[in-house]
């Protein structure tokens, strides 16, 4: 190599010999695949959403979406879900992560249990909670058995939309707390053990230790958990479908409905375009608020 280095090589060979050739060659398949299957479809969807059936350009699809009663409802529903679910999830996940991180004897089995919902789909979670919140379900059985209610309650009926909301909040908190826990647990690994020990040495109570030392250090992880959960909140779909059907409109269902039931891919693309817009808006908003580099939040 060293001997031949001075000689000018033909162009392709020069690239092949350069240091960047091997890594770029290894990355190329992924870059091509992700471009073809993520960037191209996104562009295509946006293009589709501003087309009429005849192929001329129009804003009609977006007008139809924003004039749809389900649009405002689904936005509000998503916002309600976010506001209710995120604090519950963060609290539960933080408790789980702190417990596991203290590495008490037997923490392994508890970590396994807490992580199980990580592999449970939103559809399955919706069905699980359907068996609990259904009219003849387990919750009514238990509450009536304890004498807390006289008659079974219809949690999932359109007459009790706030109960429907509650059921979805519980189901989503149950399912998606695991991913938040995993994010926080990874964040806790980065905090040196000395911090915990030093705080203990100075006699800080467990509670104060958590609030004053762990939480500030955990900020990046809390932020990425918040971003991830918000992004996925706009995609809530099967959990709602299994528990509430159409009574509780969400954006992803409307996109699905436009495609699968109305056979209108352009309208569906407009719904999807709005989901993307919401997602991007929220991510940019968070990045502004948190004032951290993208690389850091994306972790």
């Amino acid at each position, binding site marked *: 190599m060293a001997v031949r280095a001075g000689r000018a090589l033909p162009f392709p060979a020069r690239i092949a010999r350069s240091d960047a050739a091997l890594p770029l060659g290894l990355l190329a398949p992924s870059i091509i*695949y992700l471009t073809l299957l993520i960037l191209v479809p996104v562009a*295509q969807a946006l293009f589709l959403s501003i087309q009429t059936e005849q192929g001329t350009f129009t804003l009609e699809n977006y007008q139809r979406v924003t004039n749809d009663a389900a649009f405002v409802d689904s936005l509000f529903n998503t916002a309600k879900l976010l506001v209710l679910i995120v604090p519950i999830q963060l609290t539960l996940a933080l408790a789980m992560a702190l417990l596991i991180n203290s590495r008490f004897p037997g923490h392994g089995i508890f970590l396994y249990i*807490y992580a199980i919902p990580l592999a449970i789909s939103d559809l399955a979670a919706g069905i*699980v909670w359907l068996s*609990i919140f259904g009219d003849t379900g387990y919750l009514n059985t238990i509450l009536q058995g304890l004498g807390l209610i006289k008659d079974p309650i219809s949690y999932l009926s359109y007459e009790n939309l706030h109960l429907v909301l509650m059921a979805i909040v519980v189901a989503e908190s149950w399912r998606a707390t695991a991913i938040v826990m995993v994010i926080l647990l*990874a964040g806790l690994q980065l905090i040196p053990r000395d911090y915990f020990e030093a705080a203990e040495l100075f006699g800080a109570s467990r509670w104060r230790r958590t609030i004053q030392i762990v939480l500030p250090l955990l900020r990046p992880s809390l932020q990425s958990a918040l971003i991830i959960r918000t992004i996925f909140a706009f*995609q809530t779909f099967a959990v709602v479908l299994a528990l509430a059907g159409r009574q509780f409109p969400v954006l992803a269902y409307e996109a699905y409905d436009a495609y699968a039931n109305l056979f209108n891919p352009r309208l569906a693309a407009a719904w999807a375009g709005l989901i993307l817009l919401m997602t991007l808006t929220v991510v940019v908003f968070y990045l502004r608020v948190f004032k951290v580099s993208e690389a850091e939040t994306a972790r």
Partner: protein
Amino acid sequence: MSAAATPAPQRKSQRRGVLVDRILLYGVAVLLALWTLVPIYLIAIAAFSEKVAVFEYPKALLPTRFSTETMEFFVGSSGVITSVKNSVIVALGTIVVALALGAPAGYALSRFRFPGRDAFQLAVLSSKMFPIAILAIPLAVTFIDLGLYDKLIGVIIIHSAMVLPFVIIVTAGVFATVSRELEEAAQTLGTSRLGAFMRVALPLALPGLAAAAIFAFVTSWNEVFAATILTLRERTLPALVVASLNQSPLYFKFAGGFFLIIPSLFFIWFMRKYLFNLWGPGR
């Protein structure tokens, strides 16, 4: 902080404090475990009881009416066996495509500093941000043109795109834990770069790669939206269950829900070692 330095009574109260701490700790841990497990237990007894038991009220909270009738009905329902088979094929296909594409990229990220490395990493991470709806809908249109609509390969293609960013990041973390020196040592002993990778790095990385594969399987097995949009007859299991949510009886849903959960219990067990650093590998 030697024990001898503390007076006896204080030591005693300290010990009691430790005991209270312990009880509190296990108490909270057990409560959180019940919060996770009880719903799974309940759907399991709903799935393993007679069909009529689904409509009974009040419900039995213990598996006193154990029966495989509901599960048998579910498995025997038209399309279920085929959809399970389809789900497995799609998930395995997703593993193959995502690892074949992603593992080399992960290896490159862990071994080389090259121009554009950070930009690539950022692009990979932000690609997770795109909602599945905006990928699935135009792809359905494209797949109809290409003759890939309602074909399992179409679902494999989109599921691979969904898990590829994850696989790249995880494999980068996995290879980062495999010592580079070992690979170099093998090379000085006369193997080629490829030989060193195949004989040294790959075997050492295998458990981590298996965890990535399991995660790819789970993501694909659970994915509802794209599978429902991209198929009509060649349904995966979640697509079949979602499409029939309106018409199917409760016992079918409960059995289906439980069936969908089963793999999660095993998969998380297999990757439990990686849970600590699942979200921040190699740091």
